[in-house]
Each structure stands twice: as C-alpha cells, then as structure tokens.
C-alpha cells in the first residue's frame, strides 16, 4: 500500500513542513521571517517543478494509483451539470466497481460509464477496489446500448488496475463479457470518447476503452500487463516493477507516440489530486471539443472511422514484400482466393 506521500515527493514535503514551522515560529515569537520564508517558498516551487517535470514512468504509475487521486464519481460531479445514476445489469446484480448514468455536458445529454475506486477503505471494500466483475461490464454495455438507442454520445472514464481475477468472476464469464464489450463498442452507432484518468489496466480497461477518441491524463498509464506482473514473468521478481514500467512503454506520452492516444490532458502541478477542480475543467473542455468534433459525423461513418482506426494498430514487417506484390498483381487484385458459390464474385474493397 502506498502512503499519501510518495517517495519522490518526500524532499518537497519536508521543505513544505519547514516553511510551515518557520511561519508558526514567526507568529508565535513575533519575529519577522518573511524574507527567509519567501526564499524557501521559491526553493520549494523550483523543487516541485523539477520533480514533476521529470517524472519517471514508475513515478507516474504511483501517481495514477494515489489514494487521493480523484475517482470517476468525483470527476462526474465536477464536469457535468447534471447526473442521474443508473444501476444494474438486469441479469445478476449491481456492481459498485462500475458506475454509469445519464448526464448533461454543457447542455448536451450524454451517457457516462466508468470504473469506480473507493475513496477510503470502507468504500473500497464495497467497490471491490474498482475491479469490476462480469456484471459490471454488462451494466456498462447495457448503458452504452441505451446511449446508442437514444443517440447520446458516450463518455467512458477508465481507472482500473484490471478486471477482477476471482473464482466467481470466472464462473460468470469475465473473458466472454470483455470480448463482448469490446466487440459491441467497435460497432456502437454513437460517438464514444474514452478518458483514461488513472490506471488503464489491460483487458479490464479495454472492455470500456474502445472509442472514437482516447484522452489520457498526463500521469495516467495504459498497459497490456501490470508492471508487477511483467516483472514477475520477465525477471521472476514482482518487486522489479519499476524496471518493468520502463520497458512496457505505458505512459500517456508513449500512447501518443504509438498512435493509441489522441490527446494528453495536462495535470495541475503536483498531479490531479492537488487541484481536482482545475483537472476537471481541463477534462470538461477536452470532452466538449471532442463532442463538437464528433457529433456532426453520421453514425455509420463513425463506425467506419472507428474500425479503420483500430485496424491500423500494430507494427510488423513484410518479408519478401516485393515478390508478394508481384504475385498479388498477377492474380488480378488483392485477393488470392475466391470461394465458389453465391455472392462470392463481388469485388469488395478493403476497409
């Protein structure tokens, strides 16, 4: 468990403590120390910048997991003018690790879904530390299909270490529902904007993470496996998570570089939890401009664009590329095989 003060923040916190002590001393003894205090404050400001301008991937992961990091419901309250929470998957139960409902974004009705971590131990137990069971994903899917029906855009907030790895989750089809959600989201005939606010943990994040635009908070991460899991496989040592976080390329900047994220949303100095209102304003503005951009696109076209967007993700090389091209040309256009039977001779183009 990480404390409220992260290791790399300690020098800063100590400096802030000294400033506070000096201030108290000065008031108590009625001595003017304003010059000394000002100097130290300047020093603290510089130190703060130095720390937060040079965060390592591992430090960002720690920030993304910070117990004070604003949660989905915190952002919902700050971003939307109105929010009506809706519950349940209509099949098994209401999963507290997934929240959702209808909201108003600058006068525009939207459907909101998102994973929800607890803000204290008690709430974390109720919300299963924000790790959904299958019914949570089913609830999110239900609300997204509802959004499609009523032509509302979808906003999805992702902050999840992973889908819950438990016996009952497996019994109720965790893998199948994640597959289903991903597949349905690729075809959803309404625009979907995804915001990774903290942790973007693997399939459990992707299950509500497929959309037309992906926004990432500056210190959020998105990864195929947790740094701990990667370290356990790679070096048989889960404590080497720091090294793993470097090799996995999981930061927002990495996602932008790899063409996965569209936009990085800058966090206030000292990270989102230092000024949640400011952070919420930044997200709100980005959501509004995303919606302005996407809402004019007809649903059919949106789905095509989304497909093309996913379709080009991946890096590989073609061996004997030249020969291959020749062979394709010789066979008269792109396809090597044509099936015999009705409907087979249409000359369809690639997506």
């Amino acid at each position: 468990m990480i404390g409220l003060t992260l290791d790399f923040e300690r020098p800063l916190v100590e400096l802030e403590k000294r400033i506070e002590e000096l201030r108290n001393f000065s008031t108590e003894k009625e001595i003017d120390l304003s010059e000394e205090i000002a100097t130290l404050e300047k020093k603290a400001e510089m130190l703060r910048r130095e720390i937060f301008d040079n965060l390592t991937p591992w430090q960002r992961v720690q920030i993304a997991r910070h117990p004070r990091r604003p949660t989905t419901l915190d952002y919902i309250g700050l971003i939307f003018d109105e929010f009506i929470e809706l519950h349940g998957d209509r099949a098994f139960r209401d999963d507290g690790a997934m929240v959702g409902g209808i909201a108003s974004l600058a006068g525009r009705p939207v459907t909101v879904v998102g994973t929800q971590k607890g803000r204290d131990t008690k709430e974390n137990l109720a919300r299963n530390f924000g790790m959904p069971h299958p019914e949570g994903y089913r609830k999110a899917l239900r609300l997204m299909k509802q959004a499609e029906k009523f032509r509302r855009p979808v906003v999805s907030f992702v902050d999840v270490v992973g889908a819950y790895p438990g016996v009952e989750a497996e019994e109720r089809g965790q893998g199948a529902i994640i597959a289903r959600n991903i597949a349905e989201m690729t075809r959803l005939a309404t625009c979907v904007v995804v915001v990774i606010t903290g942790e973007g943990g693997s399939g459990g994040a992707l299950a509500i993470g497929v959309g037309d635009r992906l926004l990432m908070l500056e210190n959020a991460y998105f990864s195929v496996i947790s740094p701990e899991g990667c370290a356990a496989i790679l070096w048989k040592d889960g404590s080497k998570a720091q090294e793993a976080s470097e090799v996995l390329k999981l930061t927002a900047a990495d996602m932008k570089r790899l063409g996965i994220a569209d936009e990085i949303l800058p966090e206030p100095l000292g990270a989102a939890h230092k000024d949640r209102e400011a952070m919420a304003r930044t997200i709100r503005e980005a959501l509004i401009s995303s919606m302005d951009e996407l809402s004019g696109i007809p649903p059919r076209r949106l789905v095509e664009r989304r497909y093309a967007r996913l379709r080009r993700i991946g890096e590989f090389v073609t061996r004997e590329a030249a020969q291959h091209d020749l062979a394709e040309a010789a066979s008269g256009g792109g396809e090597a095989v044509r099936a015999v039977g009705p409907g087979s001779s249409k000359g369809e183009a690639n997506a």
Partner: protein
Amino acid sequence: MPAFKDLFKGKQKYVTVKPASIQTEQPDGLWTKCTQCGQLTYTRELAHNLLVCHKCGFHFRLAARQRLAITLDEESFTEFDSDLASADPIGFPGYAVKMDKTRQATGLEEAVVTGYGTMGGYPVMIGVMDFSFIGASMGSVVGEKVARLFERAARQRVPVVMFCASGGARMQEGVLSLMQMAKTSAACARLSETGVLYVSVLTNPTTAGVFASFASLGDIVIAEPGALIGFAGQRVIEETIRQKLPPGFQSAEFVLEHGMIDMIVERRDMKKTLVSLLTLHERRQEVG
C-alpha cells in the same frame, strides 16, 4: 472467372499439408508418456490416435500443421500472409533474440497459421494457433493475420473456423498487443453483421487476452476435452483470494457447466462436427 485451382499456379509461398505429416512430427523417442495419467504409449500409435491418450483420453497439444492436416481435406490448404513477421515495436529486452530462436525451433513464422481450405468439401477460412510459439501469444502479427482472415471471410462470404490456443496478449509488444484484442474483435463483429458463420474451437490452453477477444466471439464455441479455458491466470486468482483453486477450475468441462461454451467435442469427432455445422449453415441460392 478462372478455374479455382488455376489461381494458385506457380505460387510457391503457399504450402500444402498432407495428413501423413502428423506421423513424422512426433516428439523424439519411441514412447511418449501421458502428461495426465503417466501411461506410456508407442509414439506412432499415439499419433495414429490423433495425439489422444488411449488410456485417459488426454488431448496432447497439436502443432498448427498437425491440426491443419487432420482437419482439412487433403491438399486443400492455401496459406495466407505467411510473409508477415513481427517487428520489435517497443524495443523490448530480449524480444528479437527470443523471436529468432522461436522461429528456428518451431519452423513457424508466427503463433498463428491462417489460410483457406476445404472441409468435407466446404470452403473455410481457417486459423490455427500454435502454443509452441511463445505460448501462442497475440502480438501485432497474430492480430493482423486474424483480422485479415475475418475480413477475407466477410468479403468472400466463407465461414471461419478458428482453432484457438493462447497464453494471452504478447507482453513484449506492450500496449500494441493489448490493442490487437480490439482489432480482432472489431473484424469479428463486422463479419458477424454479414451473416457469415464463425466457429471458434478452444484448445488447451485458451486464456487471457485471446479468450477475452475473438476466441469468445464465435457464433458457436466448441472446446476440446480438458482444455484450460479462462480469463485470469490461476496463480493470480490464488493470490487474490488466498485460497487453492478447486481441481477442474477453468477446464473445458467447467466452462461448459457455467454456460460459456456450446459443447465439448473430442478430437476424433471434431472434423465431423465442424462439417455438420458447415452443412447446416450452407448458404442457399435464394438467400444470397
């Protein structure tokens, strides 16, 4: 339109597999010990039984080529996209070397072989994952080959049969391999809208990112007996719940009982079952 066979004339990149090849690709040694019951079987006899233990029915893993050989009609296979090879997109430590070694050891380019063939005379787009290739993990190439197979099937209106096996997404390609879940699922969802059949066969083991994407999206999902099928790794679950898992957890029989798959089919009945399904989904002239 040229005759079907003429399309492939003079193309050496396509490989033809004969059923006989299963006989020659056996593990070294005259005798093979069953992983499950310990029974020693004459290797040739085991191969003759499609690598299923005579005593306990344990289904040994098949190499992709072996699976193609016992599934497709003789000499009907044409491979697609065999020229796609993995890059090392995030410069992951040791990945390039591991890939080279794996290619040499397995004789495969990647963890999935895709292509076209016939089964009982019916045309099928077929994909077979090979667990010996880095645990049949899904990176960019696997994702691309699977997506292309679904796209071809949609364009040509030919059913897909996918033999799945995988440890999950390929960690060494970072988030790009995670996104292959979305890419393959997208292609699969699009195929589904065209009304073309997709049968997914889950073999030992089908887990994590592959289970949580195209493997679960079949119109009909079949499993081989005893196959390990699940989303989360058993060690991870045990660490989470701080308990030992019951025997049989995440087995094919377990997921059947919990409603995640349609049926369990023994290897010797697999082709027959698939052909029956293809027959029942044969497109009628008046529909097309």
